């Protein structure tokens, strides 16, 4: 009897021993894992180490993959040309799997373990924001390729941004709509970061641009049909519909509008400046107007200008290497690595993260794909509405709207 009594408790003890063993494994495994890693010696010929946190998997994989391609292409070109100040550039990639916590851990690893000078990334707004506090702590500049306005609106002296945020694109598109006489505007936006950010700017700038919002609908990523929302919009009888969305749902919206026999012109921004939108919406894409940068039709830069040459050169090299034209995300990445290379070349003396940040802030008139960048101590986006052009989709491709 007494033995049995003890047996009950013994079982419990074993359970605890096992829990203890589990914990031991937990704490010992990584320790073993990390012994031996660490920064290498310092040598004059050591390459400049730059980190890149990209969404190579997860829902933003479509952004991260072209971004990586563009960075690879540019780094190879720079290094073949002898590097910068005689030193090559080495990029250490991290995949954040479109996850904020992973992005942050990746940033920590790049900073503390790889000792990078700067970080390119992330692909997404949330991931960028997650990396911020560690970048600030360590004093390492970040150049984000995400379009969220919050990235540079909520200012940090360590965070830069290459794409045109909604702060720039939304007012531009609204003004274009007003100029075309579409003053009664209906908005449909996604509930993800891009759509919500865009919607905020539409609400804030509609009046100033001279348009009235007559409908304001949203949808969620993954929705398969937006005809309810479009029916609602149709009932509001707008002059034009503004689609502020990224991803495949934008194409569904265009289709739904056509299916509902809506005659109103459709407008959009950078989010629909993708070939996949045209493919997905097919005929419904015809006549859709969108405001974004000039990369889609390089002639927009003005043939013979330096910007035109930069863009066509990049497009040609990218196409030769990967067999497809670069999209806007590749352009964001081209600018990110290019801005860093430019800043590195301008540093006199010790190349440190802080010196790099200062040099980035002094960027003045650097010509990239997203535009001509002029950063300053209080502007870390460096672009203006002047970089925007209005396209119309015609015959399955973009052309400048006249």
């Amino acid at each position: 009897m007494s033995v049995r009594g003890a047996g009950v408790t013994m079982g419990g003890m074993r359970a605890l021993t096992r829990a203890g063993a589990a914990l031991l494994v937990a704490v010992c495994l990584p320790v073993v894992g990390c012994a031996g890693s660490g920064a290498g010696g310092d040598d004059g010929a050591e390459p400049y180490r730059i980190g890149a946190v990209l969404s190579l998997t997860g829902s933003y994989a479509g952004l991260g993959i072209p971004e990586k391609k563009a960075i690879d292409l540019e780094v190879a070109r720079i290094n073949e040309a002898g590097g910068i100040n005689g030193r090559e550039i080495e990029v250490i990639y991290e995949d954040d799997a479109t996850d904020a916590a992973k992005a942050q851990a990746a940033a920590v690893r790049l900073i503390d373990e790889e000792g990078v000078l700067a970080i390119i990334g992330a692909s997404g707004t949330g991931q960028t924001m997650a990396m911020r506090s560690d970048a600030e702590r360590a004093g390492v500049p970040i150049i984000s390729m995400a379009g969220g306005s919050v990235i540079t609106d909520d200012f940090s002296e360590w965070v830069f941004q290459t794409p045109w945020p909604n702060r720039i694109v939304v007012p531009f598109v609204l003004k274009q709509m007003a100029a075309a006489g579409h003053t009664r505007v209906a908005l449909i936006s996604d509930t993800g970061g891009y759509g919500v950010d865009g919607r905020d700017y539409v609400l804030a700038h509609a009046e100033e641009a001279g348009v009235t919002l007559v409908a304001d609908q949203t949808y969620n990523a993954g929705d398969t049909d937006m005809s309810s929302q479009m029916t609602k919009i149709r009932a509001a009888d707008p002059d034009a519909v503004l689609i502020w969305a990224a991803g495949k749902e934008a194409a569904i919206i265009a289709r739904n509008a056509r299916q509902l026999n809506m005659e109103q012109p459709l407008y959009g921004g950078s989010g629909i400046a993708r070939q996949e939108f045209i493919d997905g919406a097919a005929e419904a894409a015809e006549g859709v107007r969108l405001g974004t940068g000039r990369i889609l039709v390089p002639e927009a830069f003005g043939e013979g200008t330096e910007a035109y040459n930069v863009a066509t050169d990049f497009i040609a090299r990218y196409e030769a290497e990967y067999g497809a034209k670069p999209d806007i995300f590749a352009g964001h990445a081209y600018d990110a690595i290019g801005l860093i290379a430019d800043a590195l070349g301008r540093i006199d003396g010790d190349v440190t993260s802080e010196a790099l940040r200062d040099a980035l802030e002094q960027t003045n008139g650097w010509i990239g794909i997203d535009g001509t960048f002029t950063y300053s101590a209080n502007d870390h986006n460096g672009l203006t509405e002047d970089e925007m052009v209005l396209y119309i989709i015609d015959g399955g491709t973009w052309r400048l709207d006249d």
Partner: protein
Amino acid sequence: MIFLSVRGLTRRFGGLTAVDAVSFDVHEGSIKAVIGPNGAGKSTLFNLITGFDRADEGSVMFDGASLVGRRPDAIVRAGLARTFQNTELFEDLTALDNVRIAADLGHPGGFLRSAIRFRLAPGERDGAARAVHLLRLAGIDGFADTPARDLPHGTRRLLEIARALATAPRLMLLDEPAAGLNGAETRTLIDALYRIRDEGVTLVVVEHDMGLVMEVAEEIVVLDRGAKIAEGPPLLIQKDRAVIEAYLGEECGDDGC
């Protein structure tokens, strides 16, 4: 003294009246049997009394308090325990732990109290000891460390009785305790039933084994198609015309006469 009083208990499932205005009393310290052909409503009756099912009409009084509308666990805590026709044991746990869980009822131990402490409560240690004692009372203490799923059929029934006993009941409802038992096992069961009764637990037994019923029951209630058709001591029930017809009817149904 009337310990359990059932009055006009009725339960309908759709168009079927499974239990139809059944009334009977159980005296303290007695053994009462409920018999009837298959589908007579015996198990449903037990479920109604023990709170596992809700009656449409009628009342159940136990030791002066109404059981109507009370939850099954509250009824157990009030001193009325039960077993199931298809045993409901904790299959992965040992026989000892099966009983011990029911024995836990006797002592305190909420979440907070359990979480923040380094010693077992005295009651919990006693619980283990009491569980062993109850297994011995049921004659199955040799199986204490065997998981319930590995126990022989007869032992499972006895274990369920031991578990019900661990809740310190004053009245126990046993649903076909002898089903599937062999002769020797039935003998063990009968002995156990007497011992339990002698410890002051009143018993109500649903049973098909007429030998057992006639031997242990002081009074018998006979159900047919949900209604009570007879009640009385075994000798009278054996001669009751309605009872004989009910059972003969059943046999005819099965064998095609």
